[in-house]
């Protein structure tokens, strides 16, 4: 069998996964696309292992490892997605924009300073309260 067939198939699958990672909005769909990319790599590994007839079969061994790692990755990834979803009420990748530089986000610290209670006894609770407040405002601003 031509090596080109599995190689080209791996390339196509990889780029499909790439498209999915870049274009999908739901984080779980992004994870699916990542799985596609991993499988493309696996296919490559197996094909080249078979072609090379490696004594150690490192290609197949690495494939097995990759599958195991992919399983771990999907577990961790789903846990993260769930945590994000619980905290933010959304798992849409392009709506999680806390790192964006927006005017609203820039203006927030000043506003918090203005609100800060000068009273020392309440300073701690004020800090605790205003920090998530800013985060919530930011989430509103980016949503």
């Amino acid at each position, binding site marked *: 069998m031509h090596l080109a067939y599995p190689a080209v198939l791996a390339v196509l699958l990889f780029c499909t996964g*790439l498209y999915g*990672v*870049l*274009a999908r909005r739901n984080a779980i769909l992004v994870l699916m696309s990542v799985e596609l990319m991993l499988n493309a790599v696996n296919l490559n590994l197996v094909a080249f292992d078979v072609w090379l007839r490696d004594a150690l079969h490192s290609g197949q061994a690495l494939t097995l490892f990759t599958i195991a790692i992919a399983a771990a990755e999907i577990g961790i990834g789903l846990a993260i997605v769930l945590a994000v979803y619980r905290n933010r009420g959304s798992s849409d*990748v*392009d709506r*999680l*924009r*806390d*790192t*964006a*530089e*927006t005017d609203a986000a820039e203006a927030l610290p000043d506003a918090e300073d203005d609100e800060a209670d000068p009273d020392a006894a309440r300073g701690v609770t004020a800090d605790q309260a205003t920090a998530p407040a800013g985060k919530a405002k930011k989430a509103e601003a*980016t949503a």
Partner: protein
Amino acid sequence: MTTTTLAVLVPLLPFLGAAAGLLLGRTAPGFVRPLAVLPTLVAAVIAAVVAARLGGGRAIDAATQLTPTGSVPIDLALHLDGFAVLVAVLVGLVATCVQIYSTAYLKDDARYPSYAALVSLFTSAMLLVVYSGDLMVLLVGWEIMGICSYFLVGHYWETPEARTASLKAFLVTKLGDVPFLIGLFALAADTGTFRITGILAAVTNGGLDHPTLIALLLLAGVAGKSAQFPLHTWLPDAMAGPTPVSALIHAATMVAAGIYFVARLLPVFAASGAALVVLAVMAAVTMIGSGLAALAQDDIKRVLAYSTIGQLGYMSGALAVGDRGAAVFHLLSHGAFKAVLFLAAGVVIHAAGTNSLAAMSRMGGLAKRIPDAYWTMTVALLALAAIPPFAGFFSKEAVLVAAEHTAFGDRDIAPAAAGWTVLVAGLAAAVLTAAYATRLWLLTFRGRGPEAPDHGKQPVAMTSVLWVLAVPTIAFGLTTGVLTDWLDGHSLSPSLTTAVLSTGVGLVGGLVTYGAWRHTTALADRPPVGAVAAHPDAEPALVEAEAITSHTAAYGTIADAPDPSDPGRLLLGPLHRHAVTGFHLDALYTAVFVRPVGAAARLVRFLDRQVVDTYVRGSGSIARGLGTLIRRAQTGNVQTYLGALLAGTLVLAIAAVVLANVYAGA
């Protein structure tokens, strides 16, 4: 103690007094007056002791070098000769009198501690100038005087007149000080030393390469400090300061410094005939112009200020004919009687509640209210008008005799042209001096009208110093024979021709003024004009400040009053209008200097605000705009970042592959 040690103490004591006064002024108000008076008094006494010890003998030179100062060494040097010790005694005497006078004159002034400290510092600086044997050290005292005069003239800084006057005094004297400094450097470059003895020795040996240039540069500074034409305009305006300060500046310290400096370095000036002629013309213009202007002034202190300028013109004239003995002699006697005149004027202003002669001429009985001021002022005015046997007669005669000798070729230090200039101008100025002295006396003490208000007896501290200073005013001329030994050894005694001539023209001037006054006094029966202080019973300084402020308000100008009974108005005729303003010199300066500088400042402001700031603001807004643009890339969308990252990777990969193929093909 040696004479040198004593001489060091003379400038040091007032300086320490000033420092202590500034430090303790707020914390220990009780010490302020002793700290003001005592150091100056002790310094005056020590100066007298130094003078007595020196006794007209040969000069004492002492020098110590604190640190090497490069190619031209600067020494802390003393140079004590007859000129120095005599001027120091005068400075000490007048400064002591002024300090005592000030304790009463500014007794309720909140700023008295700083005022007294500045007067002490001023005195100390002048004594430093007098005793210094090194031109750089002299310059230190010279500049300290400049800044002290700025502060003291601006003592009533609440009034706009005082503010502008202090600024003007500072700037105009600085205008002269810049060429002065360059001249000093040129002198040191030519002679290789700043020591006065070294310079004089070098001049004697013909070591001066550019005598005219150096002399003219130095003359600029002298004209600024000693208020000679054309840099005299600050002096009349400086009358906005308290009267004791005026007395100090006019009699002993600041304006004397310039004359004294030329006297010290006269050989340098004498090395250039052109410089002496310039000095003579300067003196002549100063004498006559100031005499005319004094005749037109309404403010009593401005009359005295112009008179000071005129008398300084006499001194410059004496220097122009190469007779520094006569110059310093006139400096000493003028210091005495001008101090009396100013301090008495202070008493008059306090008693009358106004500084306007027009207002005083409408008050009767002012002489009875203040007999001390009346008599001492009369004596001092006679001295000013050079009527024998008062001090001014002898000193002015010495100047005229020196000019006459030069004019007729008996002395060959200066060109004969300088002698003629000084002689003619001096005689003309004698007429004017007598005229304005008479006018001042008549308008002040021979006023007719309602009785002058009674403020009680004047403080003893103010009246007693008048009599102290009246003694040298009366008797100083009799020391002519003794003084000859101290001052270069030239004869200072009057000659018959000039004595008769000058006294004659002086009497003519006085009598003509009297006649004019009799003629115009009929016009005085009108309601009194304004310019009377609002609180005539307050302390003298406050009365004066109010009088100065109200003068402009009442008459529209600080110099003039629309008074038809003024004899000066009749005598000057059409000249009066110009004489009042000092012959429009201020307007000329405004047109020539102030307006261009103002325009340049506006241009600079425009360039700074509109051009430079545009670039500054532009750089800021460009950076901000770029930041805003770049911030748009920071969307927070991870997918965009990843897409951009992968696209970049792709481009790199394609480039790598293509290059690899190209090289493989090659």
